[in-house]
């Protein structure tokens, strides 16, 4: 479960306050809103990459407001994947496990398991250079899931992919969320994506976050209201 209460963020001229929402445990939450409204900032604050001006963030009931990013147990997939240019795919999947000093056989088993689930077994010895957009996001997803986090934060992970690849990734994301029993917060601009994935839907507009019924995604032209540019 993700609980955000009275969150306030300040960065230069940008500020956001009074942000509160809850994604129930195991649910797939989708957050939509216009560009520049602060969606990414909220996600960064959740992950511990941005200091809170006020408010509280709790993961599975534990207050992590002041915890280091690495102590929060959140898998994070940024928009461009942000892969490690000097590491192989195998090293990506093993990164968090090596930091946790897992024994080598356990790391090997986990890497093989993840690579199988994400369909990237053939890429294990490749480096990010030359991987397609879809392949990169699969690696980023695998890296984020590797250490069995309770929560997965996805920041427009499919924005740079073509439509066919996106469709494949929707299924993979939904399946991964189920298999790993994670609570997800997924930022997107795409109503199509939200319709495919969302179990809980939030919109952020003019600094106000609100839970919306999933039906708004099917309403005629709600996109103008939900995701206006």
């Amino acid at each position, binding site marked *: 479960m993700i609980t955000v209460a009275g969150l306030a963020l300040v960065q230069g001229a940008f500020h956001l306050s009074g942000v509160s929402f809850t994604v129930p445990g195991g649910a797939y939450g989708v957050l939509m809103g216009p560009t520049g409204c602060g969606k990414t900032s909220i996600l*960064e604050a959740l*992950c*511990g*990459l941005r200091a809170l001006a006020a408010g509280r963030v709790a993961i599975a009931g534990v207050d992590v407001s002041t915890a*280091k*990013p*690495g*102590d*929060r147990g*959140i*898998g*994070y997939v*940024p928009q*461009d994947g*942000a*892969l*490690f*240019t*000097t*590491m192989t795919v195998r090293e990506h999947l093993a*990164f*968090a496990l090596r*930091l*946790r000093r897992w024994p080598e056989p356990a790391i090997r088993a986990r890497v093989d398991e993840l690579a199988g689930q994400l369909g990237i077994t053939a890429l294990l010895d490749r*480096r990010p*250079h*030359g991987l397609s957009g879809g392949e990169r996001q699969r690696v*980023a997803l695998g*890296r*984020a899931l*590797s*250490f069995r986090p309770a929560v997965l934060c996805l920041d427009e992970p499919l924005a740079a992919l073509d439509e066919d690849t996106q469709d494949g990734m929707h299924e993979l994301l939904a399946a991964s969320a189920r298999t790993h029993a994670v609570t997800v917060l997924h930022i997107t601009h795409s109503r199509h994506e939200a319709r495919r994935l969302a179990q809980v839907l939030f919109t952020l507009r003019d600094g106000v976050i609100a839970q919306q019924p999933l039906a708004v995604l099917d309403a005629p032209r709600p996109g103008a209201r939900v995701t206006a540019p």
Partner: protein
Amino acid sequence: MGEPVPGAGPHRAASDLPLWASFGGLTAAWLLLISAIVVATMIYPMATPTGLIGHLRQAFTDVDSRSAIELTMLTCTLSAVLSLVIAVPVGWLLARTRFPGKALVDALCDVPIVLPPLVIGLTMLILTRTPPGIAIENAMQATLGTRLQFAVPGIVLAMVVVGAAFAVRVMRSTFDHLSPRPEQVAMTLGASRWQSFWLVAFPGARRGMITAGTLAWARCLGEFGPIMVFAGMTPRRTEVMSTRLFLHISVGELEKAMAVAFLMVLLALVVLTLARLWGDRGVHP
């Protein structure tokens, strides 16, 4: 509305010739000048009675000259490494953090680049005559048996002051161009700042470090003013190739000067080539 459109009809873009002619011409002239400098340095000694090979042989057999070559290689390499040791953390901090007074810190880093070299040497000389400077000199004498002033450590310090300033610029721009996202992701995966730096940012900055190291090495090779003022130019003790070159010129030994200059050009080219080869190796396997 209703106003006549001047020059109605399909638009035709002007010729591209001015751009190609002016940019191409300037580039060609610039490259010609550089090539002429390099070629002249190589041709001139060949035309003298001793010949280039003779001068080079002299340079390597003459004890003073060999000592200067060895000392140059040692101090340049050591200074380039030290410059990187300074430049990597400073460059990372400047690229990744925001703090009050950052503009001042940024400007301070460039001071050795903008100060005239002789002034740098003089200020270093003055610094070592202040109470803290004297304390450092005495401590070095007690522990290492050598001082900074008019000794080899002084050469290295003079080289590092300038070399590191250039290396800092390169490393700052390297980290500026590397997205901070992978480092942030590493932290969400359980890494500390320290680990995310060493495991992600540092390996990712390899090319920049090679460029910074090469640039620092080349700057140190050419370093002259601060070394002359701060470390002196005593043969077999603190004389490096650049100060030896100056000595030859100042007494009119142009042929010997040319041999030293030729060696320096050769060294610079070898280091540049090695760095390029090393930098390109295995970056995109």
